[in-house]
């Protein structure tokens, strides 16, 4: 058993952390206020090699393990959760989809640019009328000669406007048990879809999300990911990654909450003392620290097992559930430590409080995580 990152991984994280602290964190408040994607920040993140982390060397990546991508993602989220949301969606979902399910030619044409951060990726599964109930989706793809014609609307797609490649899941016919057959596609920019207005979100505002109207969209047959009809399995596999991504972001935001709370507790004076000497404050700070620390352990294990190819969706769901519940508690306690100032945009606590809330929802709600866990615990009949 070994709970630590190896020497190379630690060095990567340290170097990346320095860049994040120097270049990304100072922009976090402004990025939130602007509610727009920070292209300059994404470039810096790309230069630091973030998008290349888990991509194999033959496609221009670093060939690192998922635990490394997890470490870098939480580091980035501790600096700016919104920017981390945008970048990690590309790295965890789009890169993985193409790497695991794309044809050789698709991998060669897209992965080097995605790894370099020259192209940005997105993932479009949910629809306005179908979230976790994937089989209820309405979007379709119909084969037309050498291409697929897509139709329908995908909802709340992160990076929708900026993305160069969007992984889209759509219905391609009827499957077994009266369920639709789903298929996955790599939809490239300029293939005829249109992006709706940017959604107004509670938090993570540096990561714009929007609906995508697929009508008029056509992609080459070679952009089908995996086999026709394999979309459900692909979506489930990608959701494992997407849930680890949520866990990484949640752990990172908990860390940001701890750093902010620690700083305030050590320097804010009340009744003649730094407030950190009072147990009501100090004990909250301890809880905030644990909100990052323990979920990180569980999520690291889940990443490691996913990397080994184990069927560990329930463990991933456990890590996602715990990390996302804990970050909401952490952000609540952090804001409380800041008192009145915490309620204003002058302190990071207010933004973190809003950012934290998404992780209990994204890539499967807490309620869905419980179902995944119980299917494993009680058996498929339950």
């Amino acid at each position, binding site marked *: 058993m*070994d709970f*630590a990152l190896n020497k190379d991984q630690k060095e990567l994280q340290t170097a990346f952390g320095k860049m994040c602290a120097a270049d990304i964190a100072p922009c976090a408040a402004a990025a939130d206020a602007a509610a727009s994607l920070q292209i300059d920040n994404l470039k810096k993140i790309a230069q630091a090699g973030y998008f290349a982390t888990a991509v194999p060397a033959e496609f221009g990546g670093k060939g690192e393990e998922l635990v490394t991508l997890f470490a870098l993602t939480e580091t980035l989220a501790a600096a700016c959760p919104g920017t981390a949301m945008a970048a990690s969606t590309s790295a965890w979902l789009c890169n993985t989809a193409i790497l695991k399910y794309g044809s050789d030619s698709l991998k060669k044409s897209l992965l080097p640019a995605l790894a370099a951060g020259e192209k940005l990726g997105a993932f479009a599964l949910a629809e306005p009328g179908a979230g976790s109930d994937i089989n209820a989706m309405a979007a379709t793809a119909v084969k037309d000669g050498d291409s697929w014609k897509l139709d329908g609307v995908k909802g709340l797609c992160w990076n929708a406007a900026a993305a160069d490649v969007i992984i889209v899941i759509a219905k391609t016919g009827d499957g077994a048990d009266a369920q639709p057959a789903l298929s996955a596609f790599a939809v490239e920019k300029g293939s005829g879809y249109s992006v709706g207005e940017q959604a107004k979100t509670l938090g993570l505002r540096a990561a714009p999300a929007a609906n995508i109207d697929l009508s008029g969209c056509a992609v080459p047959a070679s952009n089908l990911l995996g086999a026709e009809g394999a979309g459900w399995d692909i979506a489930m596999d990608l959701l494992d990654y997407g849930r680890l991504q949520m866990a990484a972001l949640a752990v990172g935001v908990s860390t940001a909450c701890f750093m902010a709370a620690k700083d305030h507790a050590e320097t804010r004076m009340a009744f003649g003392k730094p407030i950190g000497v009072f*147990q009501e404050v100090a004990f909250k700070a301890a809880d905030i620290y*644990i909100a990052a620390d323990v*979920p990180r352990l569980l999520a690291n294990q889940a990443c490691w097992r996913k990397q080994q190819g184990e069927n560990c969706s329930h*463990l991933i769901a456990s*890590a996602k*559930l715990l990390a996302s519940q804990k970050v909401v508690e952490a952000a609540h306690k952090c804001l409380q430590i800041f008192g009145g100032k915490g309620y204003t945009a002058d302190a990071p606590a207010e933004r973190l409080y809003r950012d934290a809330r998404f992780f209990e929802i994204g890539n499967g709600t807490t309620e869905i995580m*419980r179902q995944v866990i119980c299917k494993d*615990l009680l058996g498929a009949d339950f």
Partner: protein
Amino acid sequence: MDFTITEEQKAFRDAVYKFAKNELYELTKEAERKGEFSFEAWKKMGEYGIMALPFPEEYGGHDAGVMTTLLAMEALARGGCDAGTCLAWGAHTILCGVPIWQVGTEEQKKKYLPGIASGELIGGFGLTEPEAGSDAAGAKTTAVKKGDKYILNGSKMFITNGPIGHVFVVIAVTNKAAGHFGISAFIVEKGFPGFSVGEDLDKLGNRSSTTCELIFEDCEVPAENLLGQEGFGFITVGKTTLEWERSCLLAAGVGGIEFGLDKTVQYAKERKQFGKPIGKFQAVQNMLSEMKVSVEAAKMALYRVGWLKEQNLPAMLEASIAKLFISEVGLRAADLAVQVHGGYGYMKEYDVERGYRDAKLGTIGAGTSEVQRMIISKMLLNTKKKGGNK
């Protein structure tokens, strides 16, 4: 990173689980019902080698290492060895045996460890006093050197294995003025003149373990029974036992949550209401999944301490986090287990009833949750630097 355990550890863990299920479950359940210690279960554990796990082979031990010991204790509790018996094991092996092994002289080790490793000599640990719990520096029990003896006066409170123990590691003040460096540890035998025990204390949970006060009235302890250097009792004994305690003893806590979850899952599958197993209702699944997430996270917090200790790395922060996290989710999980069982969970016939009573000790014993948060926040916050309001 690597989250595998060795095949050998896996095999041993599975064997201990079966041993507990087949040999200890009924015995300790019955003992708990009666509020008595099960000497029969203890004898079986001794013969199986459970008490010998951490000690070197030359003293009758198994040299199992922290991780293997921890996995074995988790399996023992998951197999159904009740919390009180696991607690007795902890007071004996970890709190009495480990300091003698780590700090003791060759003579002390030869004299006491083989008996502790076999379980024939039952051990305990005396730190807490009626008026000094976590504030160990406020201890009042004194030890004064007279010739070739130390004379102990005072008392120790809530001592597990007190009524049945043969040998105790006892902490006493040898130099009040020296604070933490004026505290020493002694090996005290039951038969030493001036040593006696109080009445058995009746408890909420962990009822198969015995508890009482240790009383020292001009108790004569031979000078050679000083454990470690005079004045270093708190520093050395405290430190060596603490991390072991917050790993191996906690392992039984994690195993206990797993035992409760196993029972609750089984119940949720079998119990039918409104025409279907209650496990099909989302409200029940909500509780089961919370228990399951707690188990998985608790295991990680626990194994990390074992992993650090195995490399002799400091684990003070991690051990406190594990203690706090495991005991708090344990208490919550015990509550949920009863809730899923409904009325039956309130009945003594069902194992989760005792789990509910047993779990409360977790957030109190070996440093309350508040003390753990004190340790953690002191390690994390620096309130000494100059503040200034902006």
